[in-house]
């Protein structure tokens, strides 16, 4: 689109007329200065110069106007009879005609030269831009960024630009102001349309495909500026060149994304396999023990002691399987989207005591529990934290050999409640403790089984609570796992009454007694 009016409201044709008038007046003044007998040749050269000047400086219209005005002025001012437009003899007439023809030819040549120079400059600028565009597109960090950079490049060249990409189902959303049918046609056929393309010439814009190897990846649209057919062809070629670049970049991005997806898929697959292997191991080991014990019990005459041992083994192994089954379910829940915590003001010490008590009632004598006297209540999901502690303690018990103690310590830190579970087992061996809590990872001492799934759940629970979990080998042998849970605030009614939210026994918290009476 050409802006036909300059800022002061004059049309370009009017400006051409004005400029050619000024040039003709200037040429006339010069010719006037040369005036004399036999000066007519020099005078006509002055007018010819003004035509050449107009052609180079301003363009075709100015030059043609200057040619006609110049010939008219020469005729009127200097060709006898002077100050008339009539010509007194044929020589002068031929001269004027020759001047007009020469002027027109020169103006034609000059304007073509001028426009070719200008076009060459445009081409050079565009070539530079294309070169920069390749780099610019290669640096794009994401698909959105890529589209933004591509449309910026088109906007730089054509003033306005839209880049449209189909959604995964192939549907194209076309923004207002664009022709949806045109865009869809281009997406389908992969051919540029609009003025000077031979297709849909009535459109005010060009719609060009963003081509990829296996079809059109998108559509770009820019306004089509009405210019000479050659210039429009060049504009279109430039637009298509940009579109090709963007298409190439889109394709690169698409391939990279597919590669990424494939890698993620492969990683998820290998995690699933590791999980299945872990689950299978954790189920098969106790099953083997149960089946062995049960067939021994049914098949042979046994003493009471042996019988009890086998029955106890069946019970223990079945409990182990129960824990595994629960872990599987728990991990599926914890890693699902939108998992929510059922938070409540809880004492981590009380939960640790519950876990330790349950294991002791089951005959486990190796646990040492130490709880800070002034432990704050924290807002946590009690069932999950119990699961966390049960898994950590269970893991330690299974790895600590013989009668080696397993120490559980719950302590109040400045901003956290800390739980440590430590054993004197073989430790984590060569496994980097930092990587231990990656999902489904199993320690090198995996013979006892279960560690992979259990620790993955521990990590998931701690993450959900905004806490930390870390593992380390102990000085002198053994494994230590340390969990911190953020303390957060204090329970609401305690804040009001200013009672420290401590579990310290003996202190009587007054606000909870009805009527505020202290016994």
């Amino acid at each position, binding site marked *: 689109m050409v802006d036909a009016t300059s800022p002061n409201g004059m049309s370009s044709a009017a400006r051409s007329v004005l400029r050619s008038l000024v040039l003709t007046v200037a040429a006339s003044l010069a010719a006037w200065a040369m005036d004399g007998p036999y000066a007519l040749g020099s005078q006509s050269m002055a007018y010819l110069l003004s035509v050449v000047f107009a052609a180079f400086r301003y363009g075709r219209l100015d030059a043609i106007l200057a040619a006609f005005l110049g010939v008219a002025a020469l005729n009127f001012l200097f060709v006898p009879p002077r100050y008339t437009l009539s010509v007194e003899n044929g020589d002068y007439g031929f001269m004027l005609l020759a001047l007009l023809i020469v002027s027109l030819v020169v103006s034609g040549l000059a304007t073509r030269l001028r426009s070719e120079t200008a076009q060459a400059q445009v081409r050079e600028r565009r070539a530079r831009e294309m070169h920069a565009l390749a780099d610019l597109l290669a640096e794009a960090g994401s698909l959105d960024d890529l589209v933004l950079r591509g449309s910026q490049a088109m906007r730089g060249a054509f003033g306005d630009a839209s880049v449209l990409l189909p959604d995964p189902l192939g549907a194209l959303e076309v923004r207002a102001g664009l022709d949806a049918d045109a865009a869809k046609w281009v997406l389908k056929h992969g051919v540029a349309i609009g003025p000077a393309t031979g297709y849909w010439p009535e459109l005010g814009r060009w719609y060009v495909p963003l081509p990829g190897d296996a079809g059109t990846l998108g559509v770009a649209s820019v306004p089509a500026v009405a210019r000479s057919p050659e210039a429009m062809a060049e504009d279109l070629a430039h637009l298509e060149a940009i579109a090709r670049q963007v298409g190439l970049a889109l394709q690169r991005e698409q391939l990279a994304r597919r590669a990424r997806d494939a890698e993620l898929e492969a990683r998820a697959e290998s995690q699933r396999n590791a999980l299945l292997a872990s689950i299978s191991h954790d189920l098969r080991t106790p099953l083997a023990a149960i089946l062995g014990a049960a067939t021994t019990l049914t098949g042979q005459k046994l003493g009471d002691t042996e019988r009890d041992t086998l029955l106890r083994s069946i019970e223990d192994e079945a409990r182990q399987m129960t824990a595994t089954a*629960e872990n599987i*379910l728990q991990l599926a829940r914890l890693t699902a989207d939108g998992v929510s915590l059922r938070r409540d003001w809880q004492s981590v010490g009380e939960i640790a005591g519950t876990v330790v008590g349950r294991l002791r009632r089951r005959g486990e004598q190796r646990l040492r529990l130490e709880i800070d006297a002034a432990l704050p209540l924290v807002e946590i999901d009690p069932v999950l934290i119990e699961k966390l502690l049960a898994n950590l303690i269970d893991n330690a018990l299974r790895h600590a050999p013989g009668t080696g103690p397993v120490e559980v310590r719950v302590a109040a830190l400045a901003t956290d409640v800390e739980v440590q579970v430590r054993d004197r087992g073989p430790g984590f061996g060569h496994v980097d403790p930092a990587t231990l809590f990656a999902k489904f990872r199993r320690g090198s001492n995996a013979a006892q089984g279960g560690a992979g799934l259990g620790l993955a759940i521990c990590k998931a629970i701690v993450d959900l609570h905004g806490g930390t979990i870390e593992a380390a080998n102990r000085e002198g042998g053994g494994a230590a796992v340390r969990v911190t849970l953020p303390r957060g605030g204090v329970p609401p009614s305690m804040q009001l009454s200013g009672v420290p939210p401590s579990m310290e*026994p003996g202190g009587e918290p007054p606000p909870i007694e009805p009527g505020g009476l202290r016994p």
Partner: protein
Amino acid sequence: MSATGRELLVVEDDAEIRLFLRTALAAEGFQVAFAAAGAEALTMAAHAAFDLFIVDLGLPDMDGIDLVRAVRARTQAPLLILSAQTEEDRKIQALDAGADDYVTKPFGVGELRARIRAALRRVGEPPAVLELEGLRIDLDRRLVAHHGKDVHLTPIEFDLLARLARSAGRVVTHRQLLADVWGPEHVDQTHYLRIYMAQLRAKLEDDPAVPRFLLTDTGIGYRLAAE
């Protein structure tokens, strides 16, 4: 407490578990009837007076919690629920709907027996004095002794202990404890319970960190060990 002649109705759709319960409970001297679905259970309950109900929460034809309500509308006989792991919300709902206690699947027969004993104990007058090994609770005279020595409890501490003692061996949900001891407007203040249980344990337990009497059912409530 003798089981002889006691009639139990077990509502359970899983045949294997029915088989195991039939063997285990018959060995205890119970007469056991079985229903595989909720409607069947209600019909049976309408025609016979059972001494105790055992209800699986996952039934094919109705929500186990609705069955708990329906049974409760008919009889005050003790009712135990069987529930799967990680169903804390459902357990609490069933308990608040009138169930006396729960057993989590999978369970050992020892655990089930203890729950049944505790549930049957509820029937009839609660004893005025609860004797445990090392702990004596006199509900009428509001006296508590630990290893023969009198222990001073604050009124709230005693009320809390008494509430658990009246349901000895059975779980009491947080909501029930808070409503009965502090009043219905305090049912959300679970941190009261944490504080007071810690104080009770400090006074009554040999090792308050690992209690023997005052047990936590994490996420559900508390129970006083009955034996």
